[in-house]
């Protein structure tokens, strides 16, 4: 039996459905934290989902590749040495109402972590994840997903994609895993009528037109960075505007650098991995004391080479930016992606 291309669910039924999901897995959705900021967070009841949010302060990688993550524990086992126990996280997680840019960020992480040798910690969490995205109908001041081909609507990559249409949500199915969720929902979803599917197409066109203001000039930047045509003085000037907080790496949905640290006390211990940032002065510090990127200029250059050069884009299918705009809000200096691409394009600050 062929499945319908899309479904529809009413708003009251949506809440009912979310309640069922919460009973089945850990549901992570936009949630208003104390103070009013919206963060992707664990929700315990359907009314905690902030459906009307614009962006979340954190990307999804916090749940798939946590900032501080235990990799393994060890224990002294008699006189025979150590007993090692890897700590995989097999929690079932449903990511609900995530923005297209953030879902695109997860797809990017998939490509990074699935390269050989596969990152078993990330991939285990991913195998236990379901991705339900929510399309964007309102551009947000800082974001530029259209420049990064990462939204506001997605064609693939989601298990389910939700679009808010006047009274209802249109639900597109991207994978069998998504279809499974619909099938389990027992009558909460109905096949979408053609006019609703058409309404979603119209909305996409209309929204893309409103997102169209070009904010980040990736093509020109890619060319110049790839062929090393950015003058050193420009990197130097950008370095003056980097305060080495590492925030850009931490809020970036596509940054994946980490370091490891071991803890031990009597007879036991554990190894953690922690987020790292390529802008930190000791990021490339070698045991000999030599540091190939001792100058901040070289670190800024390395960061944007990694984000914007064709060499990396070819390997990972796209440049390392999904246009979420978080670096604009979080940079202590002024080295966010749109500003940097604009400087590279102009060749000066």
């Amino acid at each position, binding site marked *: 039996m062929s499945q319908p291309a899309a479904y529809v669910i009413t708003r009251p039924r949506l809440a009912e459905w979310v309640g069922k999901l919460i009973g089945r897995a850990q549901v992570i959705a936009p*949630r208003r*934290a*104390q*103070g*009013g*900021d919206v*963060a992707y*967070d*664990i929700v315990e009841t359907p009314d905690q989902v902030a459906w009307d949010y614009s962006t979340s*302060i*954190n990307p999804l990688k*916090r749940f798939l590749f*946590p*900032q*501080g*993550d235990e990799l393994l524990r060890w224990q002294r086992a008699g006189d025979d040495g150590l007993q090692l126990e890897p700590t995989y996280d097999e929690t079932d997680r449903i990511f609900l109402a995530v923005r297209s840019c953030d879902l695109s960020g997860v797809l990017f992480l998939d490509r990074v972590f699935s390269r050989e040798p596969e990152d078993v910690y990330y991939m285990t969490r991913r195998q236990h994840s379901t991705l339900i995205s929510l399309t964007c109908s309102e551009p947000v001041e800082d974001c530029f997903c259209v420049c990064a081909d990462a939204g506001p609507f997605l064609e693939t990559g989601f298990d389910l994609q939700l679009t808010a249409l006047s009274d209802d949500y249109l639900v597109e199915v991207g994978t069998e895993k998504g279809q499974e969720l619909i099938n389990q929902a027992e009558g909460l979803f109905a096949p979408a009528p053609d006019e609703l599917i058409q309404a979603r197409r119209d909305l996409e066109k209309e929204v893309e037109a409103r997102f169209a203001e070009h904010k980040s000039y990736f093509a020109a930047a890619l060319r110049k960075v790839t062929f090393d045509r950015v003058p050193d003085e420009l990197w130097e000037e950008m370095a*003056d*505007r980097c*305060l*080495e*907080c*590492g*925030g850009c790496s*931490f*809020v970036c949905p596509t940054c994946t650098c980490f*370091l490891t*640290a071991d*803890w*031990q*006390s009597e007879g036991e211990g554990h190894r*953690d991995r*922690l*987020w*790292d*940032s390529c802008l*930190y*002065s*000791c990021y490339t*510090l070698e045991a000999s*004391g030599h540091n190939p990127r001792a100058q901040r200029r070289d670190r800024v250059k390395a960061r944007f080479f990694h984000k914007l050069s064709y060499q990396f884009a070819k390997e990972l299918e796209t440049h390392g930016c999904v246009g979420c705009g978080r670096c604009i*809000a*979080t*940079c*202590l*200096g*002024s080295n966010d992606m749109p500003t940097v691409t604009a400087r590279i394009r102009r060749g000066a600050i």
Partner: protein
Amino acid sequence: MPHVLTTCPYCGCGCGLYLQVEGRRLLGTTASAGHPVGQGRLCAKGWHAHELATSGTRLRTPLVRRGSSLQQASWEEALSLVGERLTAIKAESGGAAIGVLASARATNEENYLLAKLARSALGTNNVDFSARLDALPGLFDLPKYRHLSLCTAGLDDIAAADLVFLWQTDPVEEHPAAAARVLRAAEAGVPVVEVTARRGQLGELAQISLAPRPGSELQLAAGLLHVALSKTEPAEGDSLAATVANCTPDQTEAATDVPASDVIRAGEALAAADKPLVIYTRGASLGPQGADTLMALSAFGKASEADDSWCSLLWLSSYCNFQGARDMGVLPYFLAGYQPVSEETTRAKFAEAWGAALPSEAGLPSWEMLGRVRALFVMGDDPVSSLPDVAATRQALGNTDFLVVQDIFLTPTAEMAHVVLPGASFAEKDGTFTNTERRVQRVRRAADPPGEARADWEIICDLSGRLGRPMDYASPAQVMAEIAELVPIYSEISYQRLDEDWGVRWSLDGAVSAERAGFGGEGEEEGPASVSQPAAPTVDEEYPFVLVADHSLGAWAADKLVVNAVGLRRQQGADRGEQLPELWMSRADCQKGELREGTRVRVRARTGEMDAAVHVSDAVHAGAVVLSAVMREAAASVLPPGADSETGVPVLRPVAVSVEKV
């Protein structure tokens, strides 16, 4: 709620951050987008704040000294020992024989309770914190200076200013939340004037960079005032103009080595500014002639076009709750809210609320307390790391009959203790911090303390009971309710109100009049009474360089809250192990002396010598050599600790030295 909103535990800016929690485990830190201080941003320390809580080096059980070593003990054993010894010493020698150091990093509630315990249960006004040297302590004794150790302006005034002075401070190192604002102001075209011996990162964006010979900052400030005031008609009886009458640009150049043309440029910029803002930190206050330099800076507003509503002094503290510790009466001469212990009515008010008679004699400041008290109780303070004279501090602590340290890590001070009590980090307790601009903000419990560690306010309550003064609080919220009753500047503060907003700034009524007339003001004089000779040492052929201790350089890398946070430790370069102290030297001087990066040199002063490794720097001006103040123990023979002549506060003065290859 798995994202717990709290306040950063590092510098005095007080950015808002969320701790990400799963179960009771801390997973990470996220910046708060809506927070008025951080505005969605954090520095490296903030982004790693959870690491200090999850550190494997946390104290997990009480420790009691047995012979020469500290050994694990139960809470009962440790606290009864503390209770008995303190009771006995008080009975033998009186309360004045006991000293209490609270903390620029503990919450307001904890500081309040410990000050209460000291005064009501131990009967002593020896209540202080050694990190108070971050500002210009002792000035509270001198009403005319009081306003200088309070931040009259706010961080957002940086965005409103039309001229910014960075006076002997590098905000990129010290206060990144302020640096972000200065950077934006500079990008928007606001002139920035940097005054320093070691150019900071923002110096690249500064329009005017002034490098006074270390020790001549007062004379430079006076020279700028001279130029600015000469642009306006002097008011009748204007003592300030008379004070700086002789500080002409040529005189200033002679005293400071700053070219007269630069003095004129910066002075004219000041005269023309509507909203000049002077950002300063311990670099200015702990310099020689620090008090007079700050007095001169406080006159900058008056020398400009600023109107009476503009505050031109932005003093930034290096500790998350430096302001709060003082607000809570962690001062030898004030009860909470700067209410003098010498006032009988004030003492009566607190005595009634606390149910105990209070001592009326002012206590000793931290640097005088050490060596003069028989017992010392230290909570979250680390005098070995804070006080300038490390050797004298260690000796004094070693001679103390009974030393108790309550902390989250085994600090250099804790290593010397008879009893160590494990406290809770910022992530494991409720409370409030007050930031450098007087914003009272919530600290919220997100996880449990490790092992047997307990929230510090609970430990104090327990101990107070053992000292015969039971404290019965169900929560820090109840403590704050008591504070609001007794402390007028906190009368508006309640947890409910703090939860509804991002915090509340306690008001300095008439901030400008406070800035211009002294906090608590009684029409105090403006500006320095006189401009004395520079404190810069005389250089000659034998000692051709001026060595200066830089308080911002490397300070964080040596901080226990950084050293014990594993990722942050690496970011700050604290992972490199024991090394020779680094001596920052200008490229020109290095070339002259044929010195390269890492060259081992001997630094000789009239008082002694030390070895260091050269760091070739484009940021240091020729003629100056710079050493991090955290290296002061190794440098004690060449940089002898001295005292400010007016306030008696210990300071590190610049000295003339020679530098030779070993």
